[in-house]
């Protein structure tokens, strides 16, 4: 019961804190305007290079941009507490860590999915990309799974923020790698072999592929395999992130470095 309360109340408080951090003056430029312009930039580069259709870039970038809210919000899970001087109080509490950390991840997933869906809709309207109405429920599922998967990576990011001072830089570096490796803008076949291998085990690659198939008219059952792999990747990252958080928490206690800002 206590765990459920920590999961729900902690998550809710975190959600409210997230939106304290994400005031409209930050939310609109960073999570509403920027993803649309990323889509436009990549679509026009694509047109200039004569590589793929607008649909390819709208779907790829709308999903990949969920990395910004997922990675940064999870980084704030530690970085924000450090900044507010509340990290010590949280970590000294006897609260079980599993609901504590995962409860805070739930609003991040929802926010990431919203940013992704919004970018997909606006990008499609601007570039006149047609999304079949029948694909919308399945696309929503794919978007939520993609946001979950990246939040798993975000948990690793949060753990590293316990150790690394420049967590905002690290989040941007993760975002840059996802931009290159996930096939959001470059067809995976055009990447060197070793990069394709990497792309197979990172968030977004499979969900982007699934979303593109759905927009092209594939049935939900045809993409469930890809969705399952994405879900598995997210779960593996989430577990790894949780273990890393516990490890760095113990290290932080041992070396008195928890509040290092």
């Amino acid at each position: 019961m206590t765990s459920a309360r920590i999961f729900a109340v902690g998550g809710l408080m975190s959600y409210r804190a997230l939106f304290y951090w994400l005031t409209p003056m930050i939310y609109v430029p960073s999570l509403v305007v920027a993803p649309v312009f990323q889509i436009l930039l990549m679509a026009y580069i694509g047109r200039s290079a004569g590589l793929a259709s607008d649909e390819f870039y709208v779907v790829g970038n709308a999903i990949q941009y969920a990395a910004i809210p997922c990675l940064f919000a999870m980084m704030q899970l530690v970085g924000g507490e450090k900044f507010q001087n509340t990290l010590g109080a949280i970590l000294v509490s006897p609260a079980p860590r599993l609901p504590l950390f995962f409860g805070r991840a739930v609003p991040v997933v929802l926010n990431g999915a919203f940013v992704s869906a919004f970018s997909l809709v606006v990008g499609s309207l601007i570039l006149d990309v047609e999304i079949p109405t029948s694909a919308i429920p399945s696309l929503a599922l794919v978007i939520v799974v993609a946001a979950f998967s990246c939040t798993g990576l975000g948990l690793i990011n949060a753990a590293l923020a316990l150790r690394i001072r420049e967590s905002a830089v690290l989040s941007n570096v993760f975002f840059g790698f996802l931009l290159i490796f996930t096939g959001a803008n470059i067809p995976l076949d055009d990447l060197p072999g070793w990069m394709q291998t990497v792309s197979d085990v990172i968030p977004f690659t499979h969900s982007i592929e699934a979303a593109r198939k759905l927009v092209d008219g594939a049935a939900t059952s045809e993409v469930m395999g890809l969705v399952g792999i994405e879900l598995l990747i997210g779960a593996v990252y989430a577990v790894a992130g949780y273990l890393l958080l516990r490890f760095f928490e113990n290290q932080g206690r041992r070396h008195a470095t928890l509040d290092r800002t």
Partner: protein
Amino acid sequence: MRALRLIWVGWIYQFKQLRRSSFDFFLAILWPIFFGTVAFFMFRSGGEPGALIYAGLGAAVMGIWTATSLAAGTALQRERWHGTLELLVAAPAHFALILLPVGLATSTIGIYCMAATLLWGRFAFGIDLPLDEPLMMALAVPATLLSIGALGFLIAVAFARYRHAWALGSMTEYPMWLICGFLVPIALLPDWVGPISWVLAPTWGMNAIRESSVGGTPLGDISMCFALGTAYVTLGVLLTDRVLRAARERASLSLS
């Protein structure tokens, strides 16, 4: 003479400070490399010869804008955090002389971004950039840096009264990359974008650098950089007075 000395000292000081910041320096160098890499792959896969040279130069100049937009947006916020903004405003020197070096320092960081992206393109993608007009290039690069620095100054002033100016500064990044023709020819964009890009110095700086590299007549573009740079500085100075007066009247300089 005193004004020039102040600009020079401020430029060096701000440059040294920015170079110590992993966000404003390290990330500013890395960020355009990520996008440049994507563009290089895309143009290489597209298979159009010459497109890689176009992208290589564009990605290199993109870095100057990245460095400027990120740091100029936060210029005043940094002073607020350090508790030095009121002191600087109260100093006898005109506040514009203190802010202008910030814009120039941020665009100077762009030299590192430019060099890093060019080297990355050369060694990772084999992009061999021509240099048809070395003298013009020697003029085009500083003209681009100065004019983008002047635009950074204008941004820093314009966003002075916004608590979250960094978000507005970084919001300008993608649109400027797009409409200034760094990676996409402006002719490919809708017609109404053209006039907007003409009043943006990075457009002319990009043209000047491109024409100095592959051949052409970059003098007109370089002149436009200087003309627009002067216009930005004039506008920035006039805006500084208005912004400071309004902040004093409303007691909102510190925003705390």
